[in-house]
Each structure stands twice: as structure tokens, then as C-alpha cells.
């Protein structure tokens, strides 16, 4: 019997288990999946937690309920991959041998990378919302905050869901409006990029929205340290920005497992072929989701498109057939803009987000790069789709893994 092991039972690993267990079955194959956690978190929900839009129970389920019964689940911390010997070592000392390995250990925040970030003010006036604990601490702070300077800040790129900090700023604007205290809050959006987003067309649309909502933008800011006493962030050029509440997206990194295994780049991401999702170094190792270094967005929707293509490629690999170079970097993200509206963007490696309709050319019902209530409903529906469709590896009708160019306004 051959062994396929999946490292990480988050969004991407769970989808792979659900895709592959129909295909690689006993007595020829045993699929195993390893994760150190008990709970599966719907991470996009962390955005809504601070504003009391979602409750913790909306976004937490057990890992177990999404793993098929014929897949072996190990609840253990993975200490090391030994790729030259095709085995994985667990924290309890056990070793598992594999024929094919899938790395889906995701990315996490590393506030310790920035001096003073995890200092005396951490989770008092300096918050993250990329962890459950951070989002909850921030919710408790915002519930009775009297106003002042709110600074939303990105430390460095890449980060997961690169639009989340913008969405946070928009939601903050509408949160304080509803509390009739918007005039008491000054919102500043601080980014290391030269504009609101990484893609020119979307940047234009998003900067317009920031302006409309009275949110200041400070660009090209490369943070050097957080001054906990003066409550300000300082960049390498000596620029300072004062805050009463700092909501920061710390540096994101792959899991330290990859560093221990000597398999990561300087941010612990695994060098991966961007079209096949095969590791650049080891033919029997594949990588998807936030753990890889491919130049695509680190988003659940991307992991979903990758999973469809990677399933094909793994089946080809085990049959000794050549891999398909199919993945085009397709990403599809709703961007909450506050007041019950949202934008939708759809893009890939070569095409930036543009205007148009989705998923049906000329019909929609969703509008690309335009604010609408329908898009907001889409964003909220995404949670249901995530739990009930995405994780189970079901194909979403009408939405293809590679990007469609029809119905879009390219120049």
C-alpha cells in the first residue's frame, strides 16, 4: 500500500483530502492528514469579529467533521520533513513514510519580526485581527472605546488576503458611523506599497473609496519599530505616525516547520512551480494554499482553484504521466466596503482586476470592481459556501478554476 500524506488540515489540506479520497483508495492507497489543532477556523470571519458582526461560534468548527472517514487524521504537531528519506517526523517522536506529500501548512503572523510590536501594548492598544485571539481582544477594546486615532497598518507584503486591511478600514468607518461617533475617530491607512492595493485599476477604485469615507492614506511606509511609550510607529526614514489604537498586520510567514526542514525561503514559503504546484526541489512533494511561494494571492478562493488543478496533477503524477501546467493564479475576492456593500475582484497572474460582470458575461448578477449590495450578500454567503461547499471539495457551478475573460472590460 502506498501513502499520501497531507500536512495541515486547514482550508487547502481539507479540500485536498476531500478531493483525493474518492480517487486514491484502499487497498492501493492510504491517505493521512496531520494537524496540531482541534478546531478549524473560518479565517475570513476574523474580519467581522471585532465589529460584533459575527460571534465566535459562527466561525469555529472541529477539524474532524470535515475529514472523510477513510482518511487517517493525526492530531499532532509536525516537527520535521526529511525530504531525502521521504518521511515526516511528529512531535511525539513518531515517523511516517510517504510516497507523495502535500504541504498545506498555511501562513501565520510573526509580530516578533518588528521591534516593539509584541511589546507592552500588545493586545492593549496594539492589535492584530489575523488571529482569533487578536480579533477578540480588538472586539473587546472597540466595544467601549471613546474615539481617537485609529491606525490600520500593513507591515510588509505578502500577507494573506491582501484586501483584508482595507476592508477593516471600511468596516471601521461604518461601525463608528452607526455608533454616532465617526467624528471622534480619525482613521489612517498605512501601507508599505505606493498605493491602496497592488494592482493599478483596483487601486484607483479603492483609493476613491478611502477618500469618500474620509480615511487618510500613508503610503511607502516601511516600519522599523513600534514605540510603546509614545504610541507611534516609526519607519526607516524616520517618519512617525501616532496612534491610540494600532491595528497592524504583522509580517506573515510560513510555518517554522519549513525552516526546521530546510525547505523554506527567507519567509518560510516553499519554492513551488507556479503552474503545476509541484515543489521545485522534490518531484513527489506538492504545495498549495498559503504555504507556497507562488506569486498568487494568499486566499481561500485561490486554494480552492489550486485544489481542483492539483488533484488532477497528483493523479497524473501517480500514473507517471506529465503534469499539466494549468494554474493561472486565479483569485476571486469580495471586498467589504461597509454600509452593507461590497466590491468583487477577479484576477490572475497576467490580468489585473477590471470592471465587468460575474460569473455570467454581461449578466452578473455580481458586478466586478463596483460597489453593490449584491456583492455584500455574496460575501456573507461565502461563509455558508465555505463550510458546505468549498471544504468538501465540491466544484462551484459556473466558476472555473482558471479565469474567464468574457464579460470583462480589458483595455
Amino acid at each position, binding site marked *: 500500500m502506498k501513502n499520501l500524506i497531507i500536512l495541515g488540515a486547514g482550508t487547502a489540506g481539507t479540500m485536498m483530502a476531500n478531493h483525493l479520497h474518492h480517487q486514491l483508495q484502499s487497498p492501493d492507497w492510504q491517505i493521512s492528514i496531520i494537524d496540531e489543532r482541534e478546531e478549524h477556523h473560518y479565517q475570513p470571519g476574523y474580519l467581522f469579529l471585532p465589529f460584533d458582526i459575527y460571534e465566535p461560534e459562527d466561525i469555529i468548527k472541529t477539524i474532524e467533521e470535515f475529514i472523510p472517514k477513510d482518511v487517517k487524521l493525526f492530531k499532532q504537531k509536525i516537527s520535521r520533513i526529511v525530504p531525502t528519506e521521504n518521511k515526516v517526523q511528529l512531535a511525539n517522536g513518531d515517523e511516517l513514510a510517504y510516497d507523495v506529500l502535500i504541504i498545506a501548512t498555511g501562513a501565520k503572523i510573526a509580530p516578533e519580526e518588528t521591534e516593539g510590536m509584541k511589546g507592552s501594548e500588545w493586545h492593549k492598544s496594539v492589535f492584530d485581527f489575523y488571529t482569533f485571539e487578536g480579533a477578540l481582544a480588538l472586539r473587546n477594546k472597540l466595544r467601549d472605546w471613546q474615539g481617537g486615532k485609529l491606525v490600520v497598518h500593513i507591515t510588509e*507584503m505578502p500577507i494573506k488576503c491582501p484586501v483584508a486591511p482595507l476592508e477593516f478600514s471600511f468596516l471601521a468607518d461604518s461601525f463608528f458611523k452607526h455608533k454616532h461617533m465617526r467624528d471622534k475617530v480619525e482613521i489612517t491607512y498605512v501601507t508599505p506599497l505606493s498605493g491602496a492595493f497592488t494592482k493599478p485599476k483596483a487601486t484607483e477604485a479603492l483609493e476613491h473609496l478611502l477618500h469618500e469615507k474620509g480615511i487618510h492614506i500613508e503610503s511607502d511606509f516601511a516600519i522599523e519599530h513600534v514605540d510603546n511609550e509614545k504610541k507611534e510607529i516609526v519607519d*526607516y526614514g524616520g517618519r512617525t505616525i501616532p496612534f491610540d489604537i494600532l491595528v497592524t498586520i504583522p509580517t506573515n510567514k510560513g510555518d517554522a516547520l519549513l525552516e526546521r526542514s530546510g525547505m523554506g525561503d527567507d519567509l518560510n514559503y516553499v519554492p513551488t512551480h507556479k503552474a503545476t504546484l509541484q515543489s521545485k526541489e522534490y518531484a513527489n512533494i506538492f504545495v498549495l494554499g498559503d504555504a507556497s511561494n507562488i506569486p498568487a494571492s494568499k486566499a481561500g478562493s485561490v486554494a480552492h482553484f489550486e485544489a481542483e488543478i492539483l488533484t488532477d496533477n497528483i493523479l497524473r503524477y501517480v500514473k507517471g504521466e506529465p503534469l499539466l501546467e494549468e494554474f493561472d493564479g486565479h483569485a476571486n475576492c469580495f471586498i467589504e466596503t461597509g454600509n452593507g456593500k461590497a466590491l468583487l475582484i477577479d484576477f490572475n497572474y497576467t490580468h489585473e482586476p477590471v470592471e465587468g460582470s460575474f460569473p455570467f458575461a454581461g449578466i452578473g448578477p455580481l458586478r466586478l470592481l463596483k460597489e453593490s449590495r449584491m456583492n455584500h450578500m455574496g460575501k456573507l454567503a461565502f461563509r455558508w459556501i465555505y463550510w458546505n461547499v468549498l471544504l468538501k471539495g465540491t466544484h462551484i457551478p459556473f466558476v472555473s478554476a482558471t479565469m474567464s475573460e468574457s464579460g470583462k472590460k480589458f483595455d
Partner: protein
Amino acid sequence: MEKTIAGKSITVNEEGYLTDFSQWDKTVGETLAAEAEITLTPRHWEVIKYLQDEHKNQVALSIRRIGKSGLVDIKEFYQLFPVAPLKTATKIAGIPKPASCI
């Protein structure tokens, strides 16, 4: 589009980055630096050379990478190129603006 830099006609993109490195030479670099109000010292040239080599080796450039280069730390990099240092330095070096991540 074409731009006259140091008396030569050179092809640049909308943001003023050279699109053909073979058109670059030191006087082009000096002229672009002057546009950014920077006077190039030997230290600047070391950094520019480093960026060009990394680009040739297809290494994706980032502020973090430069901090770990062993050549300059980020603080000094900012002293050399005070405003948006990576964008400014790559422009002077005649290489593409680093693709900011997605």
C-alpha cells in the same frame, strides 16, 4: 515611450523605468539619480551594482532581502535613498520596479 536621458534616447515605461537594460550606463544612472535629487557616492554605486546582480540572477527584490544582503542594512539603505528607497534605487539602476506582491 522614449525619453532623452543624458543626451541619449532611451525607452522607458509610464513610470520612468528603463525597459531595456542594455541602454543603461553610468551617466544614465547619474541623470536619473539627479532627477530624484540624489548625488551618487561610491556607496550608492555598490548598492546599485548589487541590485543589478540580483536582478540578473532573477532574485525577487524586497526591502527585507536588502536588509539581509550583508551589504547594507535597511537603515543605511534609507539614508542613501531617502524616499521610497527600493523604487528609487531600482529606477536609477535601470532595472524593473520590483513587482509588489499580490
